[in-house]
C-alpha cells in the first residue's frame, strides 16, 4: 500500500515566521511573537492534503546546528534522530546571507531540504530583487515563496512536499573545506567506519566535521565507541579553534560566492525600522521611552478597564443577591454566596484588566518593540552581571512566569540561564495584577495606575539586584557576550493580538473555575468551622491559622486575614484576592470589598503598599515552582528560589511599612 504519511519539520533562524507558517498549515494557534526565541519546545500538528496525512513539527529557531544552546540541540536531535521526510527551512528573504549558513549545515546533515522564502515583501519593499529560479539551481533545492501571515503559497508548498516525497530524490550538496581540512575529515571518517555498531543515523562526514569543530555533544555520542581513542588522537593533533574558524570561513565563502547570483540588494536604505530604531535604541532616550511606554500601558490597563469592571460588578452583585435569597439551607447559601461567588467573583471582576494588559503586551511584542527593550537594557544587564538575552524571559514574565522560565532555554551559558530562572519569578505576572488593582484602586484613587506601574518596576529592580548578588556570590563568573538580531518593526495584526489576549485571558478565567474555586471552598470551610462559630471570625480555623502566622506578618502591617490570604496565595496568586473576598464576606462586589477594606482599621494605604510588594516578591505559584524544578533539574535550586523569594519579600515589605511609619505615613 502506498505510504500516505509524510513527516515534515520546520526549521530556520529565530523569528523568520516558522510558527506563523505552522499555524497557517495546521490551523493551530501557537503563540507567535516578533522576537527570537518564542518557540522553545517542538510543537506538532497535522494537515490532511490531497489524500496525504502530513505531520508538521515546528522546531525552535536556531542560527546554526552547533548545539551551543538547548534549543539548538532540540532542533538538531530531532532532524537527525527522527529523520523527517522533508526538512523545510523557513528563510527570511530580507536576511538571506545569514540564513544560508544554516542551509549549509542542513545539507551536510544529509536532510531532504525544501526552502520556504518568507518575508519577501520586506526585502522587496526596500528594493531587493530575488531570483528564485537561480536560487533553486544553485542550492539544488526546491524554493517556494510564501506569505504565511496571509496564507499565500501554502498549496504550492504542500504540492512540493508531496512531489519531493514521491520523487524520493536526494539532492546532495557539499562544501569543500580545502585540502588540509578535507584530509582530516577523511581520516576521521576512515576510523569511524570501522565501528560497525556506530549510530548510522549520523552521516560520517557530518560527524567528522562536527568533531573538528569541537562539538562536545557529538563527542559524547561516540565516547563509548572502540575507535574513540583514535578519533581523539586525530582531533588532538590539530589546532581546534583555528579549524573551527576556517570551517566557518569556508561556509561563508561559499555563501558569498552564490549570494550575488540569487539576490540583488538595494543600496543602503533608511527604512522606517531604521528611523524608529535610531530613536528607540538611543543611549539616552531608549530607557526613558521604554519606561514611559510601560507606564502608559499600565495606566490604560487600570483606567480604561474600570467601567468594565464596574459592569461585571453590577451584574454579579445582582446574581449574588438572587442566589443568597433563593438558596436554602443557610449553610449552602453561605457556601455559594460568601464562598464561591465571593471568592471566584472577586477574581473574575479583574478579567477586563487582564484582557487589556495582555492585548497591550501583545501589541508591544508583535510590533518588535520588546526585542528593542532587551537591546537597550543590555548595557545595564551586563554591568550587573547578567546576559542581555535574560531580559526577554523577564519581559515574557509580565504575562506568565511559567513560559518565561522555559524561554531561558535560549540562553547558551548555563550560569546565565540559572540566574535568569531564579530571578524571573520576581517579574510581575498577570496573576498579581488583581491584587494591585484592588489595593491601589482602593487606597490610591487616581494614582492607582502609577502605583501599579511602580510595582512592575519594583519587580524588575529586585530581579536585577538579585542577579547582581547571585553573580557575585553563589553563581560566580562573567556573562557571555550578547548578540541578538533585532526583528524589523511590523504593524501587529489585530487578529494575532486578539488571539493572544483571548488565550491568556481565558487561561485566567479557567483558573477561576478550577484551582481558585477549589481554594475558596477550602477557605470557606476553614472560615465556617468549628461548627457554630461566627463566619470568618477569629474563632474559626482560618482565624487560628491567621493568628499563628500573625507575629511574623505584623511587622509588615498585615493582620491575620491578610496573612491567611497570603498563605493560600502560595497555590496561585489570584487566590489572595479570592481569599480576601471570602474572608471579608462581601459577596463578589469589588466596590463593597473596597469599602470594607477602607473601613478596616487594620489595612491602610501604607500596609496595602507593603502587601502589594510582598505579593509581588514572595514564593512563586505552584506551577512556577514546578517549572523551576523541571528546568534546573535540581531540588536545591528550587528550594533556594522559594526561600530566597520569601526572605526578599519579607525584607522589602518590612522596609516599606516600617520606613513609611518612620516618615509619618
Amino acid at each position: 500500500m502506498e505510504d500516505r504519511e509524510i513527516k515534515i519539520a520546520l526549521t530556520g533562524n529565530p523569528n523568520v515566521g516558522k510558527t506563523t507558517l505552522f499555524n497557517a498549515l495546521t490551523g493551530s494557534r501557537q503563540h507567535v511573537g516578533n522576537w527570537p526565541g518564542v518557540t522553545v519546545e517542538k510543537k506538532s500538528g497535522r494537515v490532511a492534503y490531497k489524500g496525504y496525512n502530513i505531520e508538521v513539527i515546528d522546531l525552535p529557531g536556531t542560527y546554526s546546528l552547533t548545539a551551543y544552546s538547548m534549543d539548538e540541540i532540540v532542533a538538531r536531535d530531532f532532524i537527525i534522530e527522527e529523520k523527517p521526510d522533508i526538512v523545510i527551512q523557513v528563510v527570511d528573504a530580507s536576511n538571506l546571507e545569514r540564513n544560508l549558513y544554516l542551509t549549509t549545515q542542513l545539507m551536510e546533515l544529509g536532510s531532504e531540504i525544501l526552502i520556504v522564502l518568507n518575508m519577501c515583501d520586506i526585502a522587496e519593499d526596500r528594493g531587493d530583487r530575488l531570483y528564485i529560479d537561480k536560487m533553486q539551481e544553485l542550492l539544488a533545492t526546491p524554493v517556494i515563496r510564501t506569505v504565511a501571515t496571509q496564507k499565500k503559497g501554502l498549496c504550492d508548498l504542500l504540492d512540493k512536499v508531496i512531489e519531493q516525497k514521491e520523487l524520493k530524490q536526494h539532492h546532495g550538496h557539499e562544501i569543500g573545506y580545502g585540502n588540509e581540512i578535507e584530509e582530516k575529515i577523511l581520516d576521521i571518517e576512515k576510523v569511524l567506519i570501522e565501528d560497525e555498531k556506530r549510530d548510522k543515523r549520523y552521516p560520517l562526514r557530518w560527524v567528522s566535521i562536527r568533531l573538528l569543530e569541537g562539538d562536545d555533544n557529538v563527542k559524547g555520542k561516540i565516547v563509548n565507541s572502540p575507535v574513540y581513542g583514535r578519533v581523539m588522537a586525530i582531533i588532538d593533533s590539530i589546532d581546534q579553534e583555528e579549524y573551527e574558524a576556517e570551517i566557518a570561513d569556508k561556509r561563508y565563502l561559499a555563501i558569498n560566492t552564490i549570494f550575488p547570483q540569487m539576490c540583488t540588494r538595494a543600496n543602503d536604505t533608511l527604512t522606517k525600522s531604521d528611523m524608529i530604531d535610531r530613536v528607540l535604541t538611543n543611549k539616552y532616550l531608549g530607557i526613558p521611552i521604554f519606561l514611559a511606554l510601560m507606564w502608559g500601558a499600565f495606566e490604560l490597563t487600570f483606567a480604561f478597564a474600570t467601567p468594565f469592571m464596574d459592569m461585571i460588578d453590577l451584574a454579579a452583585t445582582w446574581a449574588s443577591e438572587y442566589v443568597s435569597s433563593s438558596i436554602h439551607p443557610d449553610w449552602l447559601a453561605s457556601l455559594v454566596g460568601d464562598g464561591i461567588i465571593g471568592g471566584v467573583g472577586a477574581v473574575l471582576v479583574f478579567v477586563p484588566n487582564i484582557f487589556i494588559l495582555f492585548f497591550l503586551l501583545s501589541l508591544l511584542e508583535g510590533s518588535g518593540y520588546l526585542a528593542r527593550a532587551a537591546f537597550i537594557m543590555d548595557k545595564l544587564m551586563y554591568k550587573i552581571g547578567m546576559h542581555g538575552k535574560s531580559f526577554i524571559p523577564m519581559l515574557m514574565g509580565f504575562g506568565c512566569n511559567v513560559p518565561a522560565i522555559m524561554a531561558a532555554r535560549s540562553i547558551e551559558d548555563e550560569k546565565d540561564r540559572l540566574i535568569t530562572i531564579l530571578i524571573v519569578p520576581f517579574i510581575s505576572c498577570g496573576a498579581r495584577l488583581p491584587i494591585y488593582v484592588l489595593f491601589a484602586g482602593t487606597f490610591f484613587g487616581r494614582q492607582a495606575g502609577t502605583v501599579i506601574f511602580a510595582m512592575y518596576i519594583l519587580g524588575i529592580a529586585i530581579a536585577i539586584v538579585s542577579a547582581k548578588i547571585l553573580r557575585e556570590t553563589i553563581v560566580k563568573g562573567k556573562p557571555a557576550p550578547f548578540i541578538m538580531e533585532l526583528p524589523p518593526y511590523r504593524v501587529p495584526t489585530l487578529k494575532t493580538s486578539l488571539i493572544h489576549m483571548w488565550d491568556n485571558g481565558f487561561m485566567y478565567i479557567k483558573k477561576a473555575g478550577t484551582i481558585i474555586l477549589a481554594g475558596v471552598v477550602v477557605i470557606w470551610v476553614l472560615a465556617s468551622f468549628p461548627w457554630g462559630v461566627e463566619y470568618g471570625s477569629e474563632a474559626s480555623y482560618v482565624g487560628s491559622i491567621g493568628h499563628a502566622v500573625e507575629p511574623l506578618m505584623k511587622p509588615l502591617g498585615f493582620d491575620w486575614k491578610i496573612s491567611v490570604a497570603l498563605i493560600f496565595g502560595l497555590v496561585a496568586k489570584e487566590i489572595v484576592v479570592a481569599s480576601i473576598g471570602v474572608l471579608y464576606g462581601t459577596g463578589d462586589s469589588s466596590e463593597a470589598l473596597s469599602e470594607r477594606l477602607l473601613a478596616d482599621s487594620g489595612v491602610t494605604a501604607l500596609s496595602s503598599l507593603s502587601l502589594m510588594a510582598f505579593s509581588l516578591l514572595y514564593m512563586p505559584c505552584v506551577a512556577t515552582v514546578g517549572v523551576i524544578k523541571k528546568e534546573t533539574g535540581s531540588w536545591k535550586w528550587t528550594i533556594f528560589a522559594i526561600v530566597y523569594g520569601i526572605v526578599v519579600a519579607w525584607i522589602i515589605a518590612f522596609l516599606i511599612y516600617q520606613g513609611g511609619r518612620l516618615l509619618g505615613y
Partner: protein
Amino acid sequence: MDIKRENGNDVQDTSTPMVFSTVTGSLYVLLGLLQLSAGAIRILIGPDVQVPLTNLLFIPADIIGAFVLLLIGTVFIYGVIEMHSGIFEGISYAYVGILISLIFAAIYMLVSTGNMLEAYLLKNEDFIGWTPASDLRPGIYLAILPLFAFIKWKNMFEPINESRL
C-alpha cells in the same frame, strides 16, 4: 518635504521638519515644565497653591505625565540638533516624536472614554459633574500638531534610498 537638487544629486531638505520639530518640541517642553511644577508644588506645599496658567491650559498636577511631555519634547529637540548639524537621519526623531505623541494622546483619550462611561452610562457617584473638559490635558491637545504633520507627511517617511540623500 521638498527635494532639492544639489551638485547634481537629489538632496532632501529638512528645513520644514526642523521648524515643525522646534515649535512642537518647545511647546511640549514648556508645558511639561509647567505640569512638573504643578505636580511638585502639589506634593511639597499642597493643593491650595496654584501654578499660573495651569487652569487656563488644563494642566493637571501629574508628575509622571509631565515626564512624558518632557520626553516627547526632548525627542523633537534632539532631532532638531541633529538636522541642524546636517545629519539627515535626524529626521527620524521627528517621525518617532510624532508617533509617541500620538500614542500618548490615544492613551489619554481612551482613559477619558473610560471616565465618560463611568459618568454617563454607569452614573458612578465619583464622576458626578464630570465633563469631557475634565480630562483635557496638554498630552491631548498638543498632539493636534503631530496629527496634522502625520497626515500631511504620510509619504515622507517611506523608505529613503541613500542615493537620494
